[in-house]
């Protein structure tokens, strides 16, 4: 009986802790309406498992918070909940771009859009809202703090310490080849705006 009571307490503690973590993660964990970029299947499990439903390109689905590797959980318009590949989902605005061209041309279109925007304009909105993150105005007022750099440097870990951390965390180095670099459009140089 005591054990069961203890178990219940533990479960309660886990629930509370889990709830706290969930609440903290809430700004990110919110559901998002996304668009299917190419025809795909809703899978029962992460990976190539049984298909629960078929999705056509440009169908809207709700992306739920869970992700396992490249697989994210979604709810279809018909209420089917299952898993699709992360790269098969996109924002509503991007769906047309994908269906007409594909990743590389979408990238190129975006670069032209970047030329037109001012990188710091959004920071001016910050004053109207209570909580905000480090912004351009913080940098504009920053005075160099070399003493803080020394404090930061005092926290460095050595190579053996890092390897010990990895061992204890069950992390083993893997052999992974570099990914091929994309073919560059020769005429554009986004860095020129700086």
């Amino acid at each position, binding site marked *: 009986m005591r054990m069961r009571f203890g178990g219940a307490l533990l479960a309660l503690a886990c629930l509370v802790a889990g709830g706290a973590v969930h609440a903290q993660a809430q700004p990110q964990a919110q559901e998002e309406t996304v668009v299917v970029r190419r025809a795909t299947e809703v899978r029962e499990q992460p990976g190539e498992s049984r298909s629960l439903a078929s999705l056509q390109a440009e169908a809207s689905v709700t992306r739920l918070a869970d992700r396992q590797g*490249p697989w994210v959980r979604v709810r279809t318009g018909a209420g089917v909940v299952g898993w699709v590949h992360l790269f098969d989902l996109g924002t509503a605005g991007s769906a047309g771009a994908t269906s007409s061209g594909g990743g590389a041309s979408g990238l190129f279109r975006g670069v032209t859009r970047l030329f037109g925007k001012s*990188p*710091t304009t959004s920071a001016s909105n910050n004053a109207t809202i209570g909580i905000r*993150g480090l912004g351009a105005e913080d*940098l504009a*007022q920053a005075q160099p703090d070399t003493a803080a750099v020394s404090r930061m440097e005092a926290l460095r870990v050595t*190579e053996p310490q890092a390897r010990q951390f990895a061992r204890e965390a069950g992390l083993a180095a893997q052999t992974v080849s570099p990914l091929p670099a994309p073919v560059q459009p020769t005429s554009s140089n986004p860095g020129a705006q700086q």
Partner: protein
Amino acid sequence: MSLRRLALAAGLALALTPAFAQNNPLGALNSILNAVQQQPGKAAPSNPLGALLAPAQQPAVATQPGGIDFMALLSQDGPIDEAKEIEIGRQLAAVLLGSKPMHGDAALQRYVNQLGRWIALQTSRPLLPWTFTVLDDPGFNAFAAPGGYVFITSGLVERVDEAELAGILAHEITHVTERHHLQALRTKARAGAVTQLIGSQIRTSAVGSLVSQQVLAMARNLYSSGLDQQDEFDADRQGVVFAARAGFDPYGLPGVLQQLRGQAPDDPLFALSLSTHPPAQQRLDALASAMGNRLDAFTARPVVRIDQRVARARR
């Protein structure tokens, strides 16, 4: 050591780098002046061959009593040696730490240093003095500076799991290994007006090792406006590989980008991060093209919460 020999070394340096004088006549002038001004027996190349092999590092930049003339260093074309790269990074780090303080949780700081260093060991520059810190800031952002300084906001750490944090750190680590900030600073230095460069030289001489006004202005500008967008795509593409090499799910970074995709650009917690990077959907498109299913063999990893790891580091 005669002045003539020093001037000759500087001349050789210029002759060996034809683009140097074309792109940057002022830098060329500075390097001659600096070389001529060096005192006998003080940091002058004793071996003429040394000047030939390393023209940029030896005669071109005078090491002044209190520090390095960064504007002259950045304005020239030759390679910047690692010690100077680290010193530039230190000055940029001082500006970032002047805008937000370090987070006070020692266990969290230790964990991020262990994690970051472990990922950095998988790169081409494992032996840099890698230094990681969590900034006490509710925003969602991360920064890097040359020489191995990496910053991450506490607001980001609270919103991701370990594989996602590994993906972000690996992206920042790539900016360091590829010297992206150094290149951006050089572009800015070369674009600077003549008067600004001369002003910087005077100030640097006067204040010694303090961060010069010019470096301060460039650091503020660099972190407000961001890097070359192509450098961001490169850091994503290489970062997922470094994360996978370190034993993490390589989809941590795409997972974060998927979350960023849904954020309004003027959300004050995300504004700087979103304005200084390509749109998240474009970054995902680029990663989708690069990754395909090449890294899918490395995805079977349990999800680890950061508070679990930090609790262990606290023991």
